[in-house]
């Protein structure tokens, strides 16, 4: 299927049509911040936002999610609502790519040592049926560094439909079969015109040209492993106050806690976002804490993203969305951390 057009005057119709068979999520305002929220009409959507304050991971991996309910009778997994599949509008390449990473954790069957496979039912049923309308990023921000990971503002990874904002209309191109399928069904779309493809390419190269050249991340995983015991982590973490804002806003941070919420003999067991920045994250009942120091926790976060995940799943656990940079109250910039690592290695280790 080829590129199609959506006239912006018909955007409201498009959302209504999409809503017939889908639960639609799009960037919107909530509590003074921007986030991906459930929408039913054009009015609720904030089309001006660039990178949303909160990442879209919450659509598929909610901040808190009920694993099961309990009472005196026993325990029950809540009945699945016969809900519509999820459609997301306006997800930038950094964010759609983050879902591919989370899918490695939650979506792929994890082989248990006894050869049983475990699949996470809570994530899978939402993500597998979803359709992602990605958004080409025409205006990268100063905090954006998706180009460090071989990506660009017009990346299509993790999308089902690639969407370019081309002024008074959107250009849409299917990326997956699911994307072709849905574009074939929507009636408010029209064929693209001659020159549309070129216009999209031009926007892509303009966006790319505004980005700062990337740091070379080849070999970053090994570099980090070599520096594990170096004092550089104390310098890097000196100003971190372990607030955890970076992990909450991050589209790929997926660590969670399991907690019981209840009153009397009934309640529910939930999983809820947690943060490796908190000392209690690894604190054991005995008082022993393998990551008691801030420097150990900051190192864990950096190592998990750029070494451990790479080793386990073959990809960095970072899309360069820049949210952790924007949100950090002490201006700890992950790009500066990685540059420090890079330079430290060259000076401190290679040169003896």
């Amino acid at each position: 299927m080829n590129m199609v057009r959506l006239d912006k005057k018909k955007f409201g119709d498009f959302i209504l049509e999409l809503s017939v068979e889908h639960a639609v999520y799009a960037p919107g305002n909530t509590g003074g911040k921007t986030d991906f929220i459930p929408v039913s009409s054009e009015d609720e959507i904030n089309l001006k936002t660039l990178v949303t304050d909160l990442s879209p991971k919450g659509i598929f991996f909610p901040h808190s999610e009920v694993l099961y309910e309990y009472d005196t009778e026993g325990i029950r997994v809540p009945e699945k609502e016969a809900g519509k599949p999820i459609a997301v509008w306006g997800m930038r390449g950094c964010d759609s790519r983050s879902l591919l990473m989370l899918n490695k954790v939650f979506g792929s069957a994890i082989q248990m040592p006894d050869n049983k496979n475990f699949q996470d039912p809570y994530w899978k049923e939402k993500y597998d049926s979803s359709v992602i309308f990605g958004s080409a990023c025409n205006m990268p921000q100063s905090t954006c560094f998706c180009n460090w990971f071989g990506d660009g503002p017009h990346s299509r990874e993790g999308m089902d439909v690639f969407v370019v904002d081309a002024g008074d209309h959107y250009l849409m191109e299917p990326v997956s079969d699911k994307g072709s399928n849905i574009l074939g069904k929507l009636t408010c779309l029209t064929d693209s015109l001659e020159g549309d493809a070129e216009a999209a390419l031009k926007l892509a190269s303009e966006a790319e040209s505004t980005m700062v050249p990337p740091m070379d991340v080849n070999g970053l995983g090994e570099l980090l492993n070599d520096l594990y015991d170096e004092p550089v982590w104390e310098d890097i973490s000196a100003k971190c106050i372990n607030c955890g804002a970076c992990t909450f806003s991050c589209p790929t941070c997926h660590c969670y806690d399991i907690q019981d919420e209840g009153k009397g003999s009934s309640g529910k067991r939930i999983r809820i976002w947690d943060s490796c920045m908190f000392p209690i994250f690894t604190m054991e009942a005995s008082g022993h804490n393998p990551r008691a120091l801030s420097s150990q926790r900051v190192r864990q976060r950096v190592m998990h993203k750029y070494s451990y995940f790479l080793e386990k799943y073959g990809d960095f656990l970072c899309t360069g969305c820049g949210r952790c940079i924007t949100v950090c109250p002490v201006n700890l910039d992950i790009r500066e951390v990685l540059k420090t690592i890079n330079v430290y290695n060259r000076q401190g280790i290679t040169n003896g």
Partner: protein
Amino acid sequence: MGNYCVPQQMKVERIGIEDPARTLRTYDLSFVNDSDRDAFKYLPGQFCELSIPGKGESPFGIASSPTEEGFLRFTVNRTGSVTNEIHYLRNGDTIGLRGPLGNWYPVEDLKGMNVLIVGGGFAFTTLRSLLIYLMDSRDDHKDITVIYGARNPDLFIYKDEIALWKQRSDIQMHLTIDKPVDGWDKKTGFVPAVVKEVAPSPENTMAIVCGPPVMIKYTLPVLTQLGFSDERIYTSLERRMKCGIGKCGRCNIGSKYICIDGPVFSMAELKNIPETV
């Protein structure tokens, strides 16, 4: 078990008190549902998450051996909110269980070998599982040596069984406590020092170590000095595990998750992993 996030129901069959201060209790649990029982296959070294609705969940090594049918055994030290709640359980009460989780001691590789078991404190749980398992196929193994240390005589768990093991000629038992006390006629001193003193031969021997982090830290080098190769030393590690299925992200050492890549690791595996003990 279809959904590893949801516990199955167990019934408390027997409660044993292990120490005079009553902080260490042993629970024998039976399956409420026969289908859960039939599906539950485990080996020594694996663990389960025990859960009390409204209070939470904690990981515990399985202390029973798969050769002992009809129950699963756990020894619980009263330390935090979940263990406190477990200590309130009475016979006949129910408790949630997820598992078996994690890997196991290399039981197949122990066949035809001498086995050295080194344990400390109430971490002797999965070592008890292993010891019972080995004794139930005693002819498959050569010498079995156990070095077990506790802070004081009260803090050994499974005292009745230890008394029986000591009488057997086919197990060499070495018990030690940290400091001398009146009436104690066994060894005194920390586990690493006693391992050095007993100096088991590394010849055709596999060493299995489980205990508090500090004991493991100082015991592994002693074994190396005695001539044990990295492939012949296994240890079981612990972290604050929550999900047990390699997703929640807190029990990692390097790129390995204790809950699915461990808890049992060979010394050879640990060499390349930072922050182990």
